């Protein structure tokens, strides 16, 4: 199995190098054509001509079928065999470009034909029903901006870590689809149903049990992400969206929902996504607790003495971010950061704090406070509350950056 995974990796890197090579060849072919005809030639991928000395003296390429990033910008996900992380340090606001949305899946990304796609809803309902993608799109639609976050989102342990490496398993999109409550009315959900099972059509046939009250609150069946069809890695053609709840429950490639009077105790909600709390194991932690991270300055960036705008994101699965406090003296004093409007419920909220750095070494930190009054805890507070063997799920400690005399920034592992 390992060999097979490695093969996939090799194939992936072959693809990348082949494409890069192709891009290079096209660019080489285009370079000498420095005329109005250039736009007719420049239809291939990854055209990166040398920019002219003075762009006002050269006619540029014309319109094209599909836009591309500036050839000077290279934001990328950092990926392993099972997940990829969003480059949080490259974002200036809170919508994650869809191709940079984090991924976590358990048996690869399935290819699903939207023409053959159907969603089955059955169990404790009056009418077990199937809906095609076209039928789902006929229902009244709703759009909502909210974050997704893997419940295992947090890495520490060394100083040379970027925000992407520490906390890159979170992203934010504007999702569009139908409220699950609309579909539950359509099938005649039994009021006695307390749970529903959501099941994916990937090779993991991923399943999670979800309380029915989430369906009557804000759960959605979504087919669009940032205005276009959902990306394959995010569940094309249809996924479950449970705003504020741990990523794993937002079942991708959704094929089936079964209403029930009991939870199913699937592998993912028992042997995974649970964690030791003192001498017990806590399960069914659905909401993602409030947290924040400073994305600028961060490793490996360097700052200069003078005015520095500290920037970052904060979010809570329990509602709106009430405030974000920033400390520039290693946690001795705290000041309120400015929050970017609009502050949305269960959404990444961008914060900024203006700081005059005098060049002396220090530590900068941020802590989020949500509308329930929850204050993002320190790692020590979490350890005191849960014991030291608390595992890797639902860990949301305050993170701290060390600023060195030369302006370099390093993560502070605890």
């Amino acid at each position, binding site marked *: 199995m390992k060999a097979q995974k490695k093969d996939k990796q090799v194939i992936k890197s072959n693809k990348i190098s082949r494409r890069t090579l192709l891009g290079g060849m096209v660019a080489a072919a285009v370079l000498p054509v420095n005329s109005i005809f250039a736009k007719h030639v420049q239809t291939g991928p990854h055209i990166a001509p040398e920019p002219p000395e003075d762009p006002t003296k050269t006619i540029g390429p014309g319109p094209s079928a599909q836009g591309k990033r500036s050839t000077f910008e290279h934001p990328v996900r950092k990926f392993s065999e099972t997940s990829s992380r969003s480059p949080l340090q490259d974002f200036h606001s809170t919508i994650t470009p869809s191709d940079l949305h984090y991924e976590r899946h358990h*048996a690869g990304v399935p290819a699903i034909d939207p023409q053959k796609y159907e969603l089955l809803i059955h169990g404790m309902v009056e009418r077990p029903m*199937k809906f095609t993608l076209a039928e789902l799109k006929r229902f009244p639609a709703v759009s909502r901006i909210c974050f997704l976050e893997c419940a295992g989102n947090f890495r520490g342990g060394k100083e040379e870590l970027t925000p992407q490496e520490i906390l890159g398993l979170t992203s934010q999109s504007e999702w569009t689809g139908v409220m699950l409550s609309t579909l539950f009315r359509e099938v005649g959900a039994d009021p006695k149903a307390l749970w529903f099972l959501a099941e994916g059509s990937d090779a993991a046939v991923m399943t999670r049990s979800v309380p029915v009250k989430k369906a009557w609150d804000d759960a959605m069946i979504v087919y669009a992400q940032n205005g276009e069809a959902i990306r394959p890695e995010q569940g094309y053609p249809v996924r479950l969206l449970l705003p504020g709840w741990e990523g794993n429950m937002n079942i991708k490639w959704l094929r089936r929902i079964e209403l029930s009077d009991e939870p199913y105790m699937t592998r993912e909600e028992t042997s995974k996504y649970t964690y030791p709390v003192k001498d017990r194991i806590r399960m069914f932690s659905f909401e993602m607790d409030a947290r924040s991270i400073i994305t600028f300055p961060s490793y490996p960036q360097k700052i200069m003495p003078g005015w520095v705008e500290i920037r970052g994101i904060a979010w809570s699965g329990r509602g709106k971010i009430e405030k974000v406090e920033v400390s520039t003296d290693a946690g001795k004093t705290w000041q309120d950061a400015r929050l970017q409007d609009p502050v949305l419920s269960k959404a990444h909220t961008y914060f900024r704090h203006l700081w005059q750095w005098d060049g002396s070494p220090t530590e900068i930190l941020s802590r989020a406070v949500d509308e329930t009054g929850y204050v993002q805890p320190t790692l020590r507070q979490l350890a005191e509350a849960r014991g030291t063997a608390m595992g890797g799920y639902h860990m949301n400690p305050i993170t701290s950056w060390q600023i060195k005399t030369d302006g370099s920034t390093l993560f502070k592992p605890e």
Partner: protein
Amino acid sequence: MKIKIVVGTALLGLILFHQVSAQQPVPSTHKNGTSYPSRFGFGRLATTAEIALWDIDVRPDGKGLPAGQGDVLKGKVIYTSKCMACHGNNDTDLSKIKLPAPVLVSDTLAKSRPTAIGNYWPYATTLFDYIRRTMPYNQPGSLTDNEVYSITAYLLYANKIIKQNQLLNAKTLPGIVMPAKKLFIMDDRKGGPEVR
């Protein structure tokens, strides 16, 4: 509670809109459903056969377990040919071997490491459900129900939870009490200032 307030506000908004002023913005109705028909009539009834094809889940009370049965010895043979390459030979010391998949056998003490079936899985039915839906990794969903019963039996035996001669079927599997079950607690946090 919050939903009720939202619904209430939206209803009030609707009433105001209709009775008081046409200048009021149209209130969002996506959470209250009051302006919706009871049904849209989109979609179609699913057939029994269609439901049976996909309805493969198994609950702790045994609901969803199929006919058939398995035993420890057959399970060990299947494990050796279809599972061992990734999960390791449980008759050897796996503590120093780097496996491509988690080890599945532990003792049954809660505090011991690594976490595996014996010391961490709260329900035996979960084993059947998970193995049937997605294992083996390179041929997901290819095992027969009897094979799944047998592998489940072998893994429960290897974790010292059942005896070697116990047969597993839809009647016996839900009755098995897992050692870790008593350790599990539901998260009852509701937000607010307390860190727990």
